[in-house]
């Protein structure tokens, strides 16, 4: 083969394949990065690279008026549950396993670049743990640059993306059965196992879940400061920021006290009250003892979202247990904490399933 011809073939073939692959990926848009609307024939994107990437672009393209923020706890709730109370479009921008810094970074980005009006921020105690590592999929550069090229490049020319494009089309056009989504109900045995398993994990972990550093209440000061600064930014931008703490199974609170995290836990609630009023669902209530309202010790089922938002936003809440969601201010926090402390049960992590059953 003539050398010049060899080089020409190389360049033409390489570029042709790259353009073809990029074209297919651009149209199918498997990671939701582009907003051209040509992918309406395949709207369900179940093969994303990471939620952190795709949710960010969905939020950018949707231009929501209200965002829901937090970890997987609020991730189980739906925009529809919130829509009776706040202006749409609403988007659930929660990130599973995220830290407060990561959540704040997304809120701050939306404040800076998008015209949002409301933030509903679900606060989880463990997202304030200073030793909790940031998820590897979180890219701060994505939020600091107006165009983050890496996302566009990976969404265009990549054989992995091409394979996901084909899977996306297949799933949309041929209705391939999805694995069970997070919101599906579990059997009682499964929930009891999940509660026991998660409590045991927290109780026996010696790394970030139950780190010694976290036992010192002041260790969460930098995270509190991040919330304070973000809430302040919302106020400066005339954005309403609604704060609440996520509901947990009652033994989860018992466990925190048993692990000597009670002081940090109370300090956390106290410091949040100084930032502004919030609704505390992360405390003892009738619902906190109902096993079937949970997926595990720190996740309620998706349906509870309706009760949470009803309690926060509606004056008339006949279906919500009276003690579920306590409005907290800097004036009421001490009384609330005293009450909570008096309700703490003895926790035994060695046999939590038995304890759960005995507690019913």
């Amino acid at each position: 083969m003539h050398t010049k011809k060899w080089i020409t073939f190389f360049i033409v073939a390489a570029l042709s394949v790259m353009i073809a692959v990029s074209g297919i990926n651009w149209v199918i848009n498997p990671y939701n990065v582009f907003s051209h609307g040509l992918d309406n024939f395949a709207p369900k994107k179940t093969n994303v690279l990471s939620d952190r990437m795709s949710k960010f672009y969905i939020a950018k393209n949707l231009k929501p008026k209200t965002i829901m923020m937090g970890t997987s706890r609020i991730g189980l709730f739906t925009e529809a549950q919130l829509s009776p109370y706040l202006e749409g479009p609403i988007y659930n921008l929660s990130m599973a396993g995220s830290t407060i810094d990561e959540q704040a970074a997304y809120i701050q980005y939306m404040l800076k670049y998008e015209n949002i009006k409301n933030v509903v921020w679900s606060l989880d105690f463990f997202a304030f743990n200073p030793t909790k590592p940031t998820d590897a999929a979180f890219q701060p550069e994505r939020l600091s640059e107006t165009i983050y090229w890496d996302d566009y490049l990976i969404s265009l020319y990549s054989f992995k993306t091409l394979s996901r494009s084909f899977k996306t089309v297949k799933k949309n056009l041929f209705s391939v059965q999805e694995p069970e989504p997070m919101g599906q109900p579990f059997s009682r045995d499964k929930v009891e196992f999940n509660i026991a398993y998660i409590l045991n994990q927290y109780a026996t972990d010696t790394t970030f879940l139950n780190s010694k550093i976290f036992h010192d209440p002041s260790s969460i000061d930098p995270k509190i400061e991040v919330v304070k600064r973000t809430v302040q930014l919302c106020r400066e931008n005339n954005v309403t920021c609604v704060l609440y703490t996520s509901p947990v199974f009652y033994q989860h609170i018992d466990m925190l006290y048993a692990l000597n995290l009670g002081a940090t836990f109370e300090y956390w609630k106290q410091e949040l009250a100084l930032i502004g009023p919030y609704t505390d669902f992360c405390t003892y209530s009738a619902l906190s003892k109902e096993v079937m309202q949970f997926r595990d010790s720190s996740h309620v089922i998706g349906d509870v979202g309706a009760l949470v938002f009803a309690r926060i936003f509606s004056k008339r809440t006949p279906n919500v247990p009276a003690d579920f969601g306590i409005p907290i201010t800097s004036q009421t926090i001490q009384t609330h904490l005293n009450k909570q402390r008096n309700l703490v049960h003895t926790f035994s992590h060695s046999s939590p399933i038995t304890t759960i059953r005995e507690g019913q």
Partner: protein
Amino acid sequence: MLFNSYEFIFLFLPVTFFVYFWLNKKRLTQASKAWLVFASLFFYSWWNIIYLPLILGSILFNFAVGSTISKMNIVQKKRISPKVMLAFGIVSNILLLGYFKYMDFFIANTNMLIGTQWDLMHIILPLGISFFTFTQIAYLVDAYRNEVKEMDYLNYTLFVTFFPHLLAGPILHHKEMMPQFDSIKSKAINYRNIAAGLFLFSIGLFKKVVIADTFAQWANAGFETTQALNLIEAWATSLSYTFQLYFDFSGYTDMALGVALMFNIRLPINFNSPYKARNIQDFWRRWHITLSRFLRDYIYIPLGGNRNGEFKTYANLFTVFLVGGLWHGASWMFIIWGALHGTAIVLHRAWQQMGLKMNSILAWFITFNFINITWIFFRAKDWDAAKNILSAMSGINGILLPEKYAKYFGDFNNTLIQFGSVYEHINGKAQTTVYIILGFIMVLTLKNSMQLWDSFKPTRLNLVFTIAIFLTAVSMMSRVSEFLYFNF
């Protein structure tokens, strides 16, 4: 700028290439060289322009000192001897390298030894400083030896900054480079060189992006969790790093050679299947060949080489490897690594002197394992981490086998052997074993890229092969990672 980046492959390289040959076509040869210098400095400054004055100052200084030494060699009566000038040049270069590379190491050790409380300076290592400093020290020594024939500043600047080798070598010798920049042949587009360059570049890109970065995920995870590793994980960690380092560095070198070839410049080869070596001396003739050459010509021989008896030869060999270790970085781990290799090379020489022989398979086995084990010191962040991996490799932490073997060895459960998820701590999977076996097959049985280059012909088969590996590598480039030798 990284070779394995979109901006390099699709913007920088084509623009630099076409402007260079367009200027040459217009017979603007000086302008074409100036363009290559400009492009190389742009390439260097892409990450951080702050060190651009440093490299420019270093080039100007060394050219001035080198020229002065060369002139002194001609002039009969001189006020300062060339030797003093050479010493001044070398000391200045070493001080520069010492400040940027070793200052914090010096402060930390002084604080530890004599109890001072000096603050660390946290100096950021300028990219490629070890490479361009060594390259220029060699130039000064050659000027002193009266071996420098050319004194053109533009050629000298191009020799030091030429972007394919600037950040991670090969370490060049001015005698093999400067004539090439002036050669008439290098001014016209040579399609054969371009084809071979594309071929080599694609191989290098594939080695780096597809192979090295795959092994990197297990090596990195393993070296982060050294305390928890079991026997198989520890071996997988060390072997993954052994393969990662080779494919990463030799991949970079292939890309450098390939890109330079497109500009009709031949860089010296740096790797020749090093893991096929059957003794440690053989290994150093195959691994980072241009560094070995530098250490031999500019440290070992000036120290006396093998001219002053056996004991002095051993001492010189050991010193060379200590310096080689320290060249890689300011850490006791690199010094330990250098000392281990120095000891091995001394033992090998003593073995040879005694006229002893060894079965070639056994020789390869011992050499490969020695290299694999010493890379642990090279990579581990401290002594404890290295010790943890070595302990796990010896089986002290227990043997964990995949569940599927429980039916064969179940009787030993909880005593010698346990069963469970084998690669958990290194984020590995069942295929990790397959990849490691493939790694062995590649380094031991396949032709290396230099051999492939030698036999390269623009055939249809080569075309399909080159397109396939290029497209696969570019497709995986989104997980951009730096080259390991950028840190040295």
